[in-house]
C-alpha cells in the first residue's frame, strides 16, 4: 500500500489532470468581436465588393467611376456614375418627421454598443465667447488624442478652445498631453462631427456635377470639407460634417457622461424566402431619439438637426398591406418591388402625380396605399410611416428588430433643406 505522501501526490496529479480535462472543454463565446469600420475600411471593402454586417459595402461607398446604386436600376433607368475625382459616400434618401431627408453612412460600429465624445483642441490666442474661433492661432491645426484603431475612437468631438500665448509657433503643440501639461486656459465649445479618413472620400457626386444630390428627388444636399489634425505629433486627415449636429449626455452621476445620443433608423424589410428579414431598398425613416424614447426633434437655430448623426438601425417589418408611393415614371422599380420583393405597390392617381409636391412622397410608405388612388383625400387620408412616432405607433414592437450595429450617419438634407456646406 502506498504511503500517505505518495497518495497525496497522486491525488494532486489526478486533480491536475481533471483540471486539464476541464480546460479542454470547448470555450469562448464564439461571438463576433466589436469593430469600427472606418471610412478607409468601408472603402476597401467596397472595392472588393465585400459585406459589412451582412450588407454590401457598395451600398455605402461608391468608388470613382462606378455606378451609384441609388442612381442605378431599378431606381433609375440609366445608371449614373460617381465622379472620377473622388470616391463617394452614397447619399441615402430617407424621411424624418414627415419630410424628405438624406444622409450618408460614413462609419459602421459593429457590435459596439456605445460611442463617446472625445476632445478636439483648437488653439486660440484669446477667447471671445461670441466668436470663439476669432483669434485662432494662425496656421495651427486642431489636436486630437484618439486613433481610429481604438474602440474608443469617435468622430464625435467636443471642441475645446485652448488659449496659448501670442506668437506661439503653429506646430508648437501637437499632442493633447502637451496642451494639458501646459495648463492653458480651456473653454468648451460645441460638438463637431468629423470622422478621421482619407481626403478623397466625400459625399457622392454624380459625374459632371459639382455637388451631391438626393436620389429620387434630385435636390442638392450638404457635403463635407476635408482638413488635417495633429494626433500625437502626426498629421491625420479628417472629414468635417459641421458642428452642433449631435448631442451627448452630461449625466455624471449615472456614468453616462459623454455618451453620444443615438437615434433609431428604421429600415423597411420583409421576411425573405429563408424567413429572415430582408431590407426592401426603400428610404429609411430617421428617428429623433433612441427607439421608444419619445424624444422630440432637436433642431439648432440655423435649422441643423441635432439628431441622426449616430443611428441605430432597426429592421421594420412591413405588413403585407403597406406599400410605397411609386410614380409611374419608375416602372422598373415598381415591377421589381412587386415581383422580386413582394411589395404591395398601388398605382398612383395621375392627378396626385401631377401635384407640385409629389416628389416629396416618392417611395414614402403608407400603411394604406389605397389612399394613392384618391386625389381628393390625398395626402391626409394616408397613414404614413415617415417619422419615428408613426413607425413606433403603427408597427408592433415585435416588428421592429434592433440591429447590433451603429452608423455614423451625417444628415445632409432635412426638412426640405440641405444641411452643411
Amino acid at each position, binding site marked *: 500500500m502506498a504511503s500517505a505522501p505518495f497518495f497525496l501526490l497522486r491525488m494532486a496529479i489526478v*486533480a*491536475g489532470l481533471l483540471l486539464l480535462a476541464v480546460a479542454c472543454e470547448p*470555450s*469562448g463565446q464564439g461571438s463576433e468581436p466589436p469593430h469600427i469600420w472606418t471610412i478607409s475600411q468601408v472603402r476597401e471593402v467596397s472595392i472588393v465588393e465585400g459585406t459589412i454586417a451582412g450588407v454590401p459595402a457598395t451600398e455605402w461607398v461608391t468608388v470613382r467611376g462606378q455606378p451609384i446604386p441609388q442612381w442605378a436600376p431599378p431606381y433609375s433607368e440609366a445608371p449614373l456614375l460617381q465622379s472620377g475625382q473622388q470616391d463617394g459616400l452614397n447619399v441615402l434618401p430617407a424621411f424624418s418627421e414627415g419630410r424628405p431627408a438624406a444622409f450618408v453612412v460614413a462609419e459602421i460600429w459593429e457590435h459596439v454598443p456605445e460611442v463617446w465624445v*472625445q*476632445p478636439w483642441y483648437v488653439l486660440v490666442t484669446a477667447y471671445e465667447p461670441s466668436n470663439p474661433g476669432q483669434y485662432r492661432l494662425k496656421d495651427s491645426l486642431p489636436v486630437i488624442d484618439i486613433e481610429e484603431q481604438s474602440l474608443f475612437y469617435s468622430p464625435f468631438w467636443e471642441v475645446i478652445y485652448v488659449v496659448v500665448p501670442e506668437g506661439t509657433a503653429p506646430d508648437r503643440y501637437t499632442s493633447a498631453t502637451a496642451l494639458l501639461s501646459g495648463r492653458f486656459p480651456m473653454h468648451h465649445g460645441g460638438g463637431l462631427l468629423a470622422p478621421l479618413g482619407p481626403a478623397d472620400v466625400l459625399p457622392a457626386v454624380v459625374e459632371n456635377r459639382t455637388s451631391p444630390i438626393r436620389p429620387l428627388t434630385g435636390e442638392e444636399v450638404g457635403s463635407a470639407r476635408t482638413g488635417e489634425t495633429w494626433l500625437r505629433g502626426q498629421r491625420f486627415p479628417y472629414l468635417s460634417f459641421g458642428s452642433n449636429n449631435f448631442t451627448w449626455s452630461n449625466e455624471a452621476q449615472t456614468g453616462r457622461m459623454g455618451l453620444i445620443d443615438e437615434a433609431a433608423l428604421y429600415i423597411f424589410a420583409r421576411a425573405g424566402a429563408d424567413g429572415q428579414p430582408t431590407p426592401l431598398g426603400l428610404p429609411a425613416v430617421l428617428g429623433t431619439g433612441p427607439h421608444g424614447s419619445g424624444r422630440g426633434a432637436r433642431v439648432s437655430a440655423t435649422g441643423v438637426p441635432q439628431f441622426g448623426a449616430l443611428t441605430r438601425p432597426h429592421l421594420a417589418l412591413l405588413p403585407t398591406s403597406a406599400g410605397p408611393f411609386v410614380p409611374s415614371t419608375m416602372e422598373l422599380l415598381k415591377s421589381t418591388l412587386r415581383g422580386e420583393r413582394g411589395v404591395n405597390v398601388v398605382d398612383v392617381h395621375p392627378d396626385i402625380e401631377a401635384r407640385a409636391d409629389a416628389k416629396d412622397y416618392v417611395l414614402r410608405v403608407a400603411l394604406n396605399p389605397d389612399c394613392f388612388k384618391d386625389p381628393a383625400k390625398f395626402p391626409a387620408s394616408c397613414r404614413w410611416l415617415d417619422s419615428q412616432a408613426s413607425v413606433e405607433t403603427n408597427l408592433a414592437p415585435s416588428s421592429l428588430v434592433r440591429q447590433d450595429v451603429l452608423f455614423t450617419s451625417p444628415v445632409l438634407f432635412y426638412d426640405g433643406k440641405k444641411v452643411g456646406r
Partner: protein
Amino acid sequence: MSGCALPVPALSLLLLVATPSLAEPEVLPEEQPESSSAPSGYTPEEAADSPFRVSGYVDVGFAKAQGRGSSFHPDDTRVPADYGVDSFAPAVNSRGEVASLDAGGRFVNGFLPRTVDIGGHASFLLNTASLDLFYEPGSAPVLVFARTQFLPRFEKGSGGTRLLLQQAFGRVTPFSGHELTLTVGRFDSVFGIEYLENESPIRTGITPSLMARYTTGHQLGVKAFYRRQIPSLSSAVSLNVAVTNGSSRVESLQTADLSLTGLPFVSARLGYELQLLRLQVKLGMSGQTGARNDQNDARVYQTQLGADARLTAGWLSLAAEYVLARDDAGTAPGKHTGVGDFFYASRFSMDGLYGTLALAVPVEGEALRTTTVYGRYDRRAAEFHGFGGILTSRFTVGTRLDFWSVLSLKAEYLFNRENAGAPRVDNDVFTASAVYVF
C-alpha cells in the same frame, strides 16, 4: 486558438511537481519555503502547544496628497479617463489604495485601484485591521490558514467598508525530508517578489511599487512549492507553480474568486539563492499565462514575464524587479473587475521595473530596535491599444523605526512623475503609518 493550447505547459508543470516523489527522500534543513503563502514574511512567533494560533496587525495611517489626490487632470476630457494617466500613482497605504479616483464624472474603463477617497485633504486612516487564524495539528503535516481583514472606509467614493477574506487555504507538506508543499485555496501570488511584502508589517516602506498591481494579487486554486538545497554551493533552487482562476493582478483589476472563462491560469517562478555568511543573493524568473480573467472568452490571453533580484549584505539590502505584460483584446463588449463592470477589455501592453535600496541599522535602544532608511525608483511604460502610450516614474524616500518588535512607525514621500504621454498633474503623496502586530 483552442482551449487545449494552455494545458500542455500546465501538464509539464504538474510533472515537474511530481518528479521529486520518484527520487529517494533526502534529509534537508528545516526551512520555511521562501515564498510560501501565509506564514511567509510576516509570521508571528510560535505559540504554545495548541494547534490553534491567532495573530494579526493593525495599520493606522496618515496621508496627504497633492492637488485633488488623483492622477486625473481637471481639464482632461479624454475617455476612458483611466487610459491616459496612471491612476495607481498617488498610493497612500500598503494596500495600494489611492487618495482619490475622482475623474470628474468622466467615463472610466476599469483600470483602477481602490481608493480611500480623501482627495487632497490630510487625513488619518485605519488602513487595515488584520486577523490571522492558524490550525496546525501535530499529528499531520498540514497547515490551515485564514486571514481576515477589516477595511473601514467612508462610503461615498471608496465603495464603503469591506470585510475581506484575503487568504484561506490548506497546505500539506507531504515529505518530511523535502521542502515540498502543496497548497489549495486562496493564497499569495507566486509571481515575482513583491507579494512577499503585501502586508504592511513586513513591507519596509508603506506604498507598493508601480508594478505591484500586476504581481501582488491573490489567486484561488492550487499551487506547489519545491526547493532543493545544494550545500556544496551554498545555494538552493526553487520552483513555485500555481494553477488558478486568474492571474496575479490585484483584485481591483481581475477577480480571483471565480474563473470567468473556464480556462485555468498557470503561473510559475524559478528561483536561485546564494547563501553566504555575509552576503545573500536571490534571483528569480517568473512567468504566467492564461485567459484574461476580466472577460469571458477563453481565447483571449494574457501573458506576463518577470525577473527579480535581491541582495542582502550586512545592513544593506537591494531588491529589483522587472515585469513585462501583454493582454489580448476582448472579443465582445464587457469587462468585469473587482470594482465593477466596465465597457471593454482593451489590448494592453506594459513593461516596467522598480529598484529598492534600504539601509537597516540595528539600534541598541530599549525600545527602538532598528532604524531603516530607504529609497525606491519605479518606472512604468504602458499602452492601451489605440490610445497612445504613457511613461510614468516615481521616486520614493522614507524611513522606518521598529520598536519592541511590535510597533513600526513609517513615513515616506512619493514623487510621481509623468514623463511622456500623460499630462503632468500634482499627485505627489506624503504618507505615514503606525503598524502594531500581535
